[in-house]
């Protein structure tokens, strides 16, 4: 646990959901970001519309780490129902801010923290008439108080408020008035700024703050996706919302008003994926965003697309399972579900973006892979990546990039053929050529999920059936070198005995833990896996180390399980570090677990 200092501390805000706190907390975070200081924001919210506890965590990290640290240095306790646990979460020496309009005896339960009362409700009730304004403006008032305590530039705050309410300028003054209430009160009553506060830096140049679902939706637009079908489900809904708004911006013909896209809200996930199957089979780039429960429902069609060899792009923004689970909490619990979704021998291509930047690039990769391999491709993000704003490098697009539409015969190519057979491996790479409906009479074939031979004809013949099934697995293995390769970060100063493997949203916590451990003298090499099937680097990395820790956000060590199934890595070489509470992983968690393991080994 590090002591908070300038540009290195954590603010946690405990609110009641549905009271408008999210925009106030976002404003606070964005203000710090605009001051050139890197931030990490995590919204931990309930599956509810109004009334349940919700938390927002802002880590101020001048060094630019991307994960939660695990500390809380300042708690803004706005929810009476969670006071007790919120106060307990505060680090000794931390600062508690609460609404002192009402007496709160229990805020004084800890004598190792500084308690600062601000009469937020009282001030807002005095300043604003409408009941809703009074509730909303309390949030802005604490933003003001926090700004004073942390020396956040009020001009920056004002600019952001203007941007927020660009379409409703009347609200700018109202909100600025509320901010001033809190700001002035704090300046007058407290010793501002605190010892830990924000100081302008230049560490956010070339960076943006964006959530993964927005970036993935944008990636679909850049990939040339035209058909999106979906059924609303938290936390993937905002991906389709984003795709829709990007399409409205970029895909509406200015002259005719016609849409160069089609978004269909389906009656359920079975229909959503069926529509994607139909559109992809017909040659459009199509996708569906969903979460774990949706994948469960889509499984029959996923097997159909695998066997009939139809491109399919699925975004699984993972949430906590099993069953309905905790719909607004994060987990990496669908790894094995997606790897082998559907009955019979099926196996799929998986991509693991680690942040919103990779959601954008991997969205584009997913369509290329799906069309190249004519098979389902899953992009597995999670709530943490999908719904939190992350600071990432500005998104880039290579103007020369062309989509890989895979092996599709055009009219001229079909014309030259004597006869077309859908599932023949003419090139020896396991990938057969396909045709699109409407192209040419000679290109017609019958797509079926029932047993078929290389010609595409129905079969119950053993050898014919196996020929197709064997080709499918060869095709899938061929994708190992075409999914994004692992990212390897070797420890400084020679050969490390231990390694760490992680994927997806665990990346930032692991990177930081590696730094901390290295500073303590324990050096580890780190490999981040980005795709499945695994390429040879994965086995080689494990072989080169005595022991490798696999960090995952699920109970059952699902990626480790995949590694044991799909490679010859000895089981004893893989140890697990598992975090599955539903909150985003912290660097402390990884650090503590590896340190404990090291201690254990030394004493053994």
């Amino acid at each position, binding site marked *: 646990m590090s002591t908070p200092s300038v540009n290195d501390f954590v603010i946690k805000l405990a609110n009641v959901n549905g009271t408008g706190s999210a925009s106030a907390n976002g404003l606070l975070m964005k203000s710090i970001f605009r001051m050139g200081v890197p931030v990490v924001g995590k919204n931990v919210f309930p599956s509810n519309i109004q009334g349940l506890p919700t938390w927002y965590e802002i880590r101020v990290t001048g060094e630019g780490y991307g994960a939660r640290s695990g500390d809380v240095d300042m708690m803004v306790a706005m929810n009476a129902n969670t006071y007790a646990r919120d106060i307990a979460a505060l680090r000794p020496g931390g600062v508690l801010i609460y609404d002192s309009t009402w007496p709160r005896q229990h805020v004084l339960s800890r004598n190792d923290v500084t308690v600062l009362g601000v009469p937020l409700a009282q001030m807002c009730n005095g300043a604003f008439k409408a009941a809703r304004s009074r509730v909303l403006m309390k949030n802005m008032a604490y933003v003001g108080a926090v700004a004073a305590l942390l020396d956040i530039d009020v001009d920056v705050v004002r600019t952001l408020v203007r941007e927020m309410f660009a379409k409703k300028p009347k609200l700018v003054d109202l909100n600025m008035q509320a901010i001033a209430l809190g700001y002035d009160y704090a300046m007058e009553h407290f010793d501002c700024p605190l010892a830990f506060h924000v100081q302008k830096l230049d560490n956010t140049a070339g960076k943006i703050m964006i959530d993964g679902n927005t970036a993935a939706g944008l990636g679909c637009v850049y990939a040339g996706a035209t*058909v999106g079908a979906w059924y609303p489900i938290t936390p993937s809904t905002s991906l389709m919302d984003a795709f829709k708004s990007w399409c409205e911006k970029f895909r509406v013909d200015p002259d005719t008003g016609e849409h160069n896209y089609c978004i269909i809200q389906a009656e359920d996930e079975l229909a959503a994926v069926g529509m994607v199957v139909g559109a992809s089979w017909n040659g459009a780039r199509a996708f569906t965003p969903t979460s774990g429960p949706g994948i469960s429902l889509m499984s029959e069609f996923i097997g159909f697309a695998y066997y009939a060899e139809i491109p399919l792009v699925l975004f699984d923004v993972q949430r906590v399972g099993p069953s309905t689970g905790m719909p607004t909490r994060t987990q990496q619990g669908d790894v094995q579900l997606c790897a082998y979704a559907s009955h019979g021998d099926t196996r799929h291509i998986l991509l693991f973006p680690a942040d919103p930047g990779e959601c954008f690039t991997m969205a584009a990769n997913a369509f290329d892979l799906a069309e190249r391999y004519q098979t389902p491709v899953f992009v597995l993000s999670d709530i943490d990546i999908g719904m939190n704003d992350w600071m990432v490098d500005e998104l880039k697009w290579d103007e020369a990039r062309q989509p890989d539409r895979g092996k599709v015969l055009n009219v001229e190519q079909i014309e030259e053929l004597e006869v077309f057979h859908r599932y023949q491996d003419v090139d020896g790479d396991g990938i057969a050529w396909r045709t699109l409906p409407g192209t040419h009479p000679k290109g017609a074939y019958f797509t079926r999920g029932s047993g078929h031979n290389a010609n595409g004809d129905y079969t119950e013949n053993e050898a014919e059936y196996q020929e197709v099934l064997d080709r499918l697995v060869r095709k899938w293995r061929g994708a190992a070198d075409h999914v994004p390769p692992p990212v390897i970060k070797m420890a400084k100063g020679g050969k490390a005995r231990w390694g760490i493997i992680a994927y997806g949203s665990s990346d930032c916590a692991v990177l930081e833990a590696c730094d901390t451990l290295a500073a303590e003298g324990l050096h580890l090499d780190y490999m981040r896996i980005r795709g499945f099937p695994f390429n040879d680097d994965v086995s080689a990395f494990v072989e080169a180390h005595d022991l490798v820790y696999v960090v995952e956000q699920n109970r059952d060590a699902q990626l480790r399980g995949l590694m044991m199934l799909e490679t010859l890595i000895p089981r004893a070489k893989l140890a697990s570090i598992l975090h599955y509470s539903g909150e985003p992983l912290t660097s402390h968690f990884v650090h503590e677990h590896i340190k404990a393991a090291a201690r254990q080994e030394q004493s053994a």
Partner: protein
Amino acid sequence: MTSFAKPHINLKHAKRNDLGLTWHDYEGAMSTLCAGCGHDSITACMAKAFFELSIEPHRAVKISGIGCSSKTTAYFLSESHGNNTVHGRMPSVATGAAAANAGLTYIGVSGDGDSLSIGLGQFAHAMRRNVNMLYMLENNGVYGLTKGQFSASADIGSKSKKGEINLSPPIDPVTLALSLGASFVARGFSGDREQLVPLIKAGLKHNGFGLIDVISPCVSFNDHPGSTKSYAHTYQYYHPAVHADYVPMSEEIKTSYAAGEAVPVELHDGGSIILRKIDEDYDPRDRGAAYTQIAERDAKGEIVTGLLYIDESHDDMAAMNKLPARALNTMPYETLCPGSEALAALQKGYR
């Protein structure tokens, strides 16, 4: 094996359509259904309708679910793409395909199990969306491939081959379609090609979702005395109400229909459907009246057939979604990708 290739016989003097194609060009593989199956007659009617409409086979798309009826998409239009999807999910695949390319002719083939039990949800929602397709529901009241269980269209009191009596009320696709806002609702009988072929032609030319519920007796499991979906029962209670003929734009409407009986309905492609009322009281352009009449006659055990409802004024899915004339699956990438400058510009909002 569920399909055998059929030998292609080139008949010199065979009748040719406007494309110069013969009836054989609209055939498919050999059927493997039971001899006498109603579905085979319907297959022949579908092929005939496509032939007579001079639709290029490769510009048609056949989509089906699972079951005896769904297998039949292999038995006609061998030069069309076919997609034999999963059980009860044909409508979603057809919907997606139509979104990708609205320029092809889509025909979905399904049965009463596929549409009214496992697939009831998708069946209903495809109608709500008014997907531009013809949906053939080959209705025999029984699960054939799994050997004779009642389906959801079995009538109360209908007897199974094993002697069980069905006690649950049937789901009637026609009244269901009327209540869900379907824009073309018809019922036919596999034993009446004279009525069915024109209905299929009209359904294919209708702009939007067309449903034809075709009573199609299952000779193996539901053609015995006591069954209300047998040939004998259907012939006995069969009641054609409105006959429909499709007339292309190029042809002049013949005046042979008696005045007051023939009603032309104009179609988007410039052609028309001529409605001939067999039953004078019946108006296929009034949804409420059609619903009432069908429900009343159903209650009496009468099977009302023909083009029971038509409304050409509804936007289909493509229009509702403002889809361009150019199919989405042929849209040039340059049109779809906003490019790197736009990317740089939009990110100003994220700083």
